[in-house]
């Protein structure tokens, strides 16, 4: 094989630039990355397992402003602040954009218009008839945008870690940390309860109580004996209750898992195991997960939650269910 042939058959990724092929650059980069991690391991070794570090404390809700009314704890904590932030951002952005609509939109208007169109046509329009879509679109859009803002601010470090503070001029400033309200099960569960009650109320309103309950049975069972029908009805009833778990836990678990991955890859694992070198090794992975969470998971989970809400509403009111 001649030299010309060898060049012609070189892989596309091995383009020459500055004397080094892309493959060589990647290998050198990986070598430096692993080399420094090994060097840190050799110099600092292992400090032994860290018993003081409690990763679960990152999600612990400390009372910031105590409000107790009639035995009910309504205190302001980290999760409540994130709820208020997400609500303020949702309302603020939508009102601000609505008042400043331009013929030549800027990027934020384009982004909001695309999201608005998606909630109207794909989420509401895709699962509901025209009348139902018009009635439930504001709820579905609010749900989508609120969950999206809530997820997104969950990936911006904010001064919310009151466990580790920094003393500045005598004031204990909380450390910057990430947290999401949707990473706390109670918030997705409340949203799910609203959805669950809403679609049953809509179903009963559209068909009447008994016809609605009868509609839980799949079509084609008209000739089945009543005992078997009752058995299937019980299964269907359980599936409706299971939605309380599936809808809430899907959102909660996805966001919590993302935050746990970021926590452990961002240094938590190194602190927990007392091996500093792990920090240098895992931090780039934290960056990958950060991009994945911000770029995909945050939006995807908001979309899934609101789409399933629309499907449940559509299923409860549709004639043939």
């Amino acid at each position, binding site marked *: 094989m001649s030299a010309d042939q060898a060049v012609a058959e070189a892989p596309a990724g091995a383009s020459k630039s500055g004397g080094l092929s892309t493959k060589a650059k990647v290998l050198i980069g990986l070598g430096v990355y692993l080399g420094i991690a090994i060097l840190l391991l050799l110099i600092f070794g292992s400090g032994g397992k860290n018993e003081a570090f409690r990763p679960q404390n990152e999600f612990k809700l400390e009372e910031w402003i105590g409000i107790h009314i009639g035995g009910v704890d309504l205190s302001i904590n980290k999760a409540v602040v994130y709820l208020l932030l997400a609500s303020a951002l949702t309302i603020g952005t939508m009102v601000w954009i609505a008042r400043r609509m331009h013929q030549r939109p800027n990027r934020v208007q384009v982004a909001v218009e695309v999201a608005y169109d998606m909630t109207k046509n794909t989420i509401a329009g895709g699962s509901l008839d025209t009348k139902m879509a018009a009635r439930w679109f504001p709820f579905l859009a609010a749900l989508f945008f609120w969950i999206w803002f809530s997820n997104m601010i969950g990936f911006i470090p904010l001064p919310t870690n009151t466990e580790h503070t*920094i003393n500045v001029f005598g004031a204990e400033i909380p450390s910057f940390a990430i947290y999401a309200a949707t990473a706390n099960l109670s918030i997705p569960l409340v949203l799910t309860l609203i959805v669950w009650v809403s679609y049953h109320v809509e179903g009963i309103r559209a068909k009447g109580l008994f016809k609605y309950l009868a509609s839980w049975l799949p079509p084609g069972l008209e000739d089945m004996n009543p005992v078997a029908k009752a058995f299937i009805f019980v299964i269907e009833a359980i599936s409706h209750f299971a939605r309380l778990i599936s809808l809430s836990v899907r959102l909660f678990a996805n966001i919590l898992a993302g935050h746990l991955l970021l926590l452990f890859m961002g240094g938590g694992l190194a602190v927990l195991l007392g091996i500093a070198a792990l920090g*240098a090794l895992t931090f780039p992975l934290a960056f990958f997960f950060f991009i994945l969470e911000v770029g995909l998971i945050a939006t995807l989970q908001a979309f899934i939650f609101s789409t399933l809400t629309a499907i449940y509403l559509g299923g409860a009111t549709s004639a043939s269910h």
Partner: protein
Amino acid sequence: MSPPKYVDLLLLAAALAVFLLAGLPLLGYGVAAVCWVVQRAVEAYATRRANAELRAGNRQKAMGIVAATTLGRVWLMATAVLLVGLLGDREAGLCAAVMVLVLFTVAFAAKGLTHLFGEPEGQGVA
């Protein structure tokens, strides 16, 4: 409407006064500041290189430059903060980590706002 382009660097300069007046560990500030400025310089260089590659039609190479330098910048800051905590004292490490997180939050938000409030591509005046 958009925040200043170098709002993070302004904040970095302002933070020096806070560190000095509050008696916070200057080692933490120094390392965080040097790392931040270096990663900003790398970012500026990478953006220029990536734009040049895009103009030349090498989309894959442009993406490679952005991905590699972004990863490198993140890793540089994380390793530097880790070393401050290990070689210096834990307080300095914590201060450096918080400083970098504050700068990241401000830079991330400012970049997002600048991007969103700019005019979309292909909407130029005919």
